[in-house]
């Protein structure tokens, strides 16, 4: 995102740099551009839609008795995190503070002018920047739900989500994108959330899956997706929304957004083909679920580099992500831990792969911002090292905090539903509903 052009030198300096990086903006005082604003308004809507899209993607993959509870776990993040973000999440992530966490000066949007701008994005309204960022904060915890689907108490889940967003997501966003965040200052590149969104959620997913244990009957019982057409609708909405996620992370309307859109689409396409052909070769048949999973893997893989690499590099990243995530899922089946809907296999692995490849493929022909020039000047090996530091820091931090949170919740309120509730399904036992009454 453009915001990551902001340097550790805060205030005016950050603002000037950011402004300078933006082709259409003169060096003078920032002014809201209606075209930039139009695209980020649209992008915010697109990213919003990704959460319902994810709900369907996941919802179709579980058994019928858990369809609603799975959808609701994603959906309710829209409710919970929307409020968390404007009340205290935004300030923790984006206010000036320490290298590790933002200050509290913007609690409840305090001090944000309703018709001004923030330094991160000097050509769009301040509240729009906040809203756009909010959508990232919403979908990230929703991603984790895939790992523990079909077995966790709704109340425990709600508590987890709020704490995780506050103690994992907000600090990580600050590290990478926040004014003065240490990873950003170090030169780590993350265009649209490879570390902040995908690695953090993917690793936390793994920890959660291991902590909470397998679903009853896994892996002996057959647990087939109850509605793959729903999963495919979800995939379509995710692909569509991802244009907002990645191309919106240009924080304006112009060539950078166009590059990001094209690399995004390219990697999604390559990922879908890669997974499908790998499966075809390996199992003898190409599946729709495989193609859909591969598309998501490609989208994850390109996220950190969408505005830093060329469309040709995006083919490569997409193919690699498709194959790597497919292998990760096979490995899971071998190891028999129960990351139910493969959040780690797709978002963890895809995110790590993408973050590293960004260091290799970054090019100034796509993005001439200072931060990119610095990265290119360092050379791919050094930049790869910096990216690796970002990955490792994110992995360690996310895993540790997630584990502590789970322990805490488990001993205080209990994490997992009772066996007979799991058997009867969460829809009935947690929510008193069932998804379908088809005669």
């Amino acid at each position, binding site marked *: 995102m453009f915001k990551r052009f902001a340097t550790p030198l805060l205030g005016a300096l950050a603002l000037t740099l950011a402004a300078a990086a933006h082709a259409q903006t003169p060096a003078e005082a920032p002014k809201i551009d209606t075209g930039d604003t139009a695209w980020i308004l649209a992008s915010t809507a697109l990213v919003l839609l990704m959460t319902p899209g994810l709900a369907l993607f996941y919802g179709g993959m579980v058994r019928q008795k858990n369809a609603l509870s799975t959808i609701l776990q994603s959906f309710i993040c829209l409710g919970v995190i929307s409020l968390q973000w404007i009340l205290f999440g935004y300030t923790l992530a984006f206010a000036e503070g320490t290298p590790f966490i933002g200050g509290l000066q913007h609690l409840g949007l305090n001090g944000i002018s309703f018709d001004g701008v923030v330094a991160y994005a000097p050509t769009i309204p301040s509240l729009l920047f906040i809203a756009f960022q909010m959508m990232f904060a919403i979908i990230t915890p929703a991603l984790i739900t895939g790992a523990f689907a079909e077995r966790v108490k709704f109340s425990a889940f709600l508590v987890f989500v709020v704490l995780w967003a506050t103690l994992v997501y907000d600090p990580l966003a600050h590290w990478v994108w926040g004014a003065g965040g240490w990873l950003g200052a170090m030169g780590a590149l993350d265009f649209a959330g490879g570390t902040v969104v995908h690695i953090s959620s993917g690793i936390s997913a793994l920890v959660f899956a291991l902590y909470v244990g397998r679903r009853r009957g896994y892996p002996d019982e*057959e647990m*087939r997706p109850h509605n793959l057409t729903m999963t495919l609708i979800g995939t379509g909405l995710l692909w569509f929304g991802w244009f907002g996620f990645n191309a919106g992370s240009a924080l304006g309307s112009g060539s950078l957004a166009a590059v990001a859109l094209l690399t995004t689409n390219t990697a999604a396409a390559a990922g879908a083909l890669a997974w499908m052909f790998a499966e075809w070769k390996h*199992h003898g048949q190409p*599946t729709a679920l495989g193609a859909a999973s591969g598309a998501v893997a490609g989208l994850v893989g390109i996220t950190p580099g969408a505005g830093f690499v060329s469309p040709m590099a995006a083919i490569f990243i997409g193919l690699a992500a498709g194959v790597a995530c497919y292998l990760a*899922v096979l490995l899971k089946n071998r190891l028999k831990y129960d990351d139910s809907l493969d959040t780690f296999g797709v978002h963890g692995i895809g995110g790590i792969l993408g973050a590293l490849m960004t260091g290799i493929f970054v090019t100034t022909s796509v993005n001439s911002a200072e931060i990119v020039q610095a990265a290119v000047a360092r050379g791919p090996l050094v930049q790869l090292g910096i990216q690796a530091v970002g990955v490792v820091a994110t992995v360690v931090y996310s895993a540790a905090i997630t584990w502590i949170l789970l322990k805490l919740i488990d001993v205080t309120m209990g994490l997992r539903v009772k066996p007979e509730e799991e058997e009867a399904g969460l829809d009935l036992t947690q929510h008193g509903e069932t998804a379908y009454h088809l005669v």
Partner: protein
Amino acid sequence: MVKIECIIRPERLDEVKAALNALGVVGMTVSDVRGFGRQKGYVQHYRGLEYHVNLLPKVRVDVVVSNDQADEVVDAVVEAARTGEIGDGKIFLTRIDDAIRIRTGERGDVAL
């Protein structure tokens, strides 16, 4: 009275229905079932997990007829449902002690 319970391939239902109608059978009850037998199933795979599907979609047709109509009904079903491939299904005959038409309360053969 006899209940003739036919487990057939879904795609033969229309023919079976037509054959029964041709015999003047005016009623039957149909349900969707899954069958397991000699017919081999399919392998499904979902993200690398393989499941062997050996419960195949079948249709069950229940017809209750008077004893003397039973044989011709069985023959008609066999003819209409047969493809000659494994999986054509079975017919089971059971004695029915009584039948009641709910609308009128009539009992016995006349209720069919």
